[in-house]
């Protein structure tokens, strides 16, 4: 029975280690989207097109900021070992 136990320990370690990645990925994705927004709004011609571009990116950021916060919380839970044991295990 040593093999399944070793696998379990490895998987739990991986889950925790990746938790750190999700914590970093959350804000990193928002920074990336924000930089894209500034870049693309800057490239748009003045007038209606600029307003439209700003509106579109505003919508994207508004939606993805709370989702990225969720990814950070998910990562935090993973790092703390909350997913080592699920209700079905």
């Amino acid at each position, binding site marked *: 029975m040593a093999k399944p136990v070793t696998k379990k320990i490895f998987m739990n370690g991986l889950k925790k280690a990746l938790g750190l990645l999700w914590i970093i990925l959350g804000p990193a994705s928002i920074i990336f989207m924000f930089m894209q927004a500034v870049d693309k709004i800057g490239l748009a011609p003045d007038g*209606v097109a600029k307003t439209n571009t700003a509106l579109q990116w505003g*919508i994207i950021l508004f939606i993805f900021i709370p989702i990225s916060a969720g990814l950070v919380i*998910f990562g935090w*839970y993973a790092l703390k070992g*909350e997913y080592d044991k699920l209700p079905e295990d």
Partner: protein
Amino acid sequence: MSPEPQKNSIFKVIGASSLGTLIEWYDFYIFGSLATIIGAQLFPADAGASALINTLAIFAAGFIVRPFGALVFGRLGDLIGRKYTFLLTLVLMGGSTFLIGLIPSYSSIGYAAPILVLILRLIQGLALGGEYGGAATYVAEHAPANRRGFFTSWIQTTATGGLFLSLGIIVVTKNLLGAEVFADWGWRVPFLLSILLVGVSIYIRMKMHESPMFTKLKTEGKVSKNPLKESFSHKVNFKMVLLALFGATMGQGVIWYTGQFYAQSFLENTCKLDFNDSRYILLWGIVFATPFFVIFGSWSDKVGRKWIMLTGMLLGIIFYRPIYQVFLDDTDVSKVTQQDILKTDKPEIKQNPVDGTMDLLYTTSTRITLTNGMSYTEVQAATKYESGAPDTLVKTYKDKKLPAPVFWKFVALIFFQILLVTMVYGPIAAFLVELFPTKIRYTSMSLPYHVGNGVFGGLVPFIATLIASFPGSTPLSGLWYPIGIAALSFLIGAIYLSNKKPDHGEASH
């Protein structure tokens, strides 16, 4: 009770639930299927591509509010019951769809037109946010625990069925009325028709009974007092909400909307296929693939949900770019030589002044048929400047009709994409239902479902079109969005999800 009446009863439950859900999806998708025409009606005539992007943004707004609908109606469903909640969502959806069909165009009421449509679209999104979780929960709570995948997979066919119905009614209406009348006012017919469909569905749903598991909870006085608090402030539930979102519904959402929505939008707007051809291809793909929802749903009862869903995501990650490259290559007519041309029709020439200037725009449209059976319209737009500046000539192609072998090859490629949809989507209702206990199920499962589908999935056409419009991008650049999201979800799902069914300590139905 004998097994036979029980079987009849569950199929009545599935029939009544599925019909209403199918109609709600129909209501929701006719907007997306008519994005190009609605864009021309809602925005100024010279808005061009920005009208399409803005219409897609209004379309996307309906998806964005779905999670809020999930919270509002999910809470109601866990408090007062499943039956009355999804009856209410049906009325809201039908009413707002009908009213979209009555909104005057931009030429009549200016920017009030897109604003009113946006408001109605938001109501549609809220209603759908409440509907799906209710229907899936309702069916799952009537089904035996060991066959939940099979029984809920019927509900899973309704989203694709709704899309099929919307495309079918649009194509039939357009063919009956003609292209010009359809673009003028005929596009309103599919919206107005919704009121009849919803009426029938309300009548059927009124006759349904409350779910047995919810009734049992109510009788025992165990109904949740505050489903929102229990779902999202208790770590034991909230961590599962996050896992369901990032490890399953997020990837499932982008696979669904790439295969069934972006594909059609790509064929029509990027490959410039004929309006009907782009829809017929999708319709055939849906017809061939739909039974697989039930096959994969049923199979997931035997082998578990996790790996069926994740395999669907993985295949999407691997094959999307090659598939869309084939779409582009097979519809590319820019390299056609004289030897390839079988017939050239008489060109139609139009001369129009350019708005607000003395410049003239000459448009020459020529229908060309190739020896391989493909035909298309070549449009040459030449602008003659009053100032004496050199003339400009822009050549574009539209209304491409494919030869039969290429048409069926495209059907096969769309079928494959929808097959992936059936893998990720067939088992997911059972997966979500089983993840949460009965008393907070409606609320808890609805949120990750609608964030995954509504936000990540629903934004595929919008974000992919946006990415493809960036300077330096290629027509395939937009695919990086669904591929990236599916890859992230696959990784999280593979590592964190379990293939076993959770046990919430409840007696199975």
